[in-house]
């Protein structure tokens, strides 16, 4: 039984726990283990809110996040225009970003049209016809607000899973998650 797992289980004396916490704070390997153990614990309890690579992906995204609105980085007129165009397409871009859109016949993202290492071109690509070079988040992250319930109901009966599972999945069509009632 290693110290991290003992720490997590609350089996260390206060002094020892403090020492371990300091170590975890300083040692990257220990911190990864701490994250992994928590992830395993969450998974065992079925509480997997975030994907295992969430931290890593987030860090990568942050690193790739461009300072897009700085004119100094994009001195040419053309590039600035594309930045504004990008803002105009912000909602679409955001959708693509959140949904992890990786469109294309093969599903394999190809980004040879990106001209620079910053995310600016990448994001222009998302808004355009290209694909995001960043790894895709697998799901939509916004819960349905109840407005879609009638469509969910209209769909449910056609799903083979319904035939396998009976009425259970129909709970999706009376969802009250973030509900906006009436229409």
């Amino acid at each position, binding site marked *: 039984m290693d110290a991290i797992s003992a720490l997590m289980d609350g089996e260390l004396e206060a002094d020892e726990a403090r020492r371990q916490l300091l170590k975890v704070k300083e040692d990257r390997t220990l911190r990864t283990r701490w994250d992994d153990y928590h992830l395993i614990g969450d998974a065992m309890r079925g509480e997997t809110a975030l994907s295992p690579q969430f931290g890593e992906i987030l860090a990568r995204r942050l690193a790739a996040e461009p300072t897009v609105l700085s004119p100094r980085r994009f001195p040419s007129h053309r590039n600035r225009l594309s930045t504004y165009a990008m803002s105009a397409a912000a909602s679409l871009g955001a959708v693509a970003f959140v949904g992890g859109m990786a*469109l294309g016949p093969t599903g394999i993202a190809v980004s040879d049209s990106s001209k620079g290492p910053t995310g600016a071109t990448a994001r222009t690509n998302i808004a355009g016809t290209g694909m995001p070079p960043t790894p895709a988040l*697998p799901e*939509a992250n916004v819960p349905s607000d109840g407005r879609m319930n009638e469509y969910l109901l209209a769909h449910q009966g056609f799903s*083979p899973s319904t*035939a396998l599972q009976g*009425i259970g999945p129909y709970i999706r069509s009376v969802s009250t998650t973030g509900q906006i009632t009436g229409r």
Partner: protein
Amino acid sequence: MRVSLPGTAAGLLVLVGAAGSACAADGASTGEAFAWLKKMAAASRQLNYSGTIVYQHRNHVETSRVVHFVNSAGGEFEKLETLDGPAREVVRSNDQVVCYLPNVKKVLIEERNRSARNFPALVPESVHGLSESYDMSTESADRIAGHDCQWVALTPRDQLRYGRRFCAETASGLPLRAQTINETGDAVESFAFTEITIGGPFNRDRVRSRYADASKKQKWRVERSGFSGPAATPADTGWVLTSRLPGFRKMMEGKRSIAGRETISQIVFSDGLAAVSVFIEPLQQHPAGQPLSHQGAVNIYTKAHGSNVVTVLGEAPAKTIMQIGDSLQLKPLTAAVQQ
């Protein structure tokens, strides 16, 4: 980022290769898994059972009572009653599904027509069709809600669909637990019985809504949906997908009503397990809310398309849903006629 791409592609190839060889080695297991699927579908349709089911997605947990009865004539009746949050009931009597929403005094009625009832995709119809998209296998035995059960897994062969795992009650085949797994191996949704009684005599009262009378007396708003309206036709809607999605086939296409609004087109695509519906509705106002949302394993994508609003939803990854929505087009000839 860019340098990692060839790696991704290579990784994918390795995965595909592995799936291919696993498939060749596990022919017997595939057959066994498919037999379990058929047993599950039959049990869900034919058995009397009642129990408590927990629906979990992301951090959201909801508990419901469910009851399923079959009468001597083979008629199916089932009811779902939520135990958490606002009271809601869903009652299905053969081809009619009625949702009672007492908090907003509303009744939603979904009516299926005969052709929809014989919808072929309702039962996984062929091992071949399914194994094109999934690697099927039986896994360990388990025990859920006091009953012995057998895990059956469907692992997707590509990232266009989610994986599924079912634990079917050993004796009857009734699925006691069902999980939908995303590409990182996390359950995006799970249904699990925490308590279940299998068998028992038919009891019509237990599959009747407690709001059936009140909703009529108090004149709750009734919103009807289905294929029975004047404009309903099981026919060509004039819409097509410009790019084919591997494994998904068109299962149904027609004009229908939703909540009293007529002439909504619905096209259903399925890979034999997951289904995706495309709804095309004349635009009343610009679609409000988020273009991309989810309800458990169901991802939902809404966008304007000319003078229509397109809503694509189904138990498939957001990427797949968006790909379908974005490749939807009016057939050129029909477009010309409509203008």
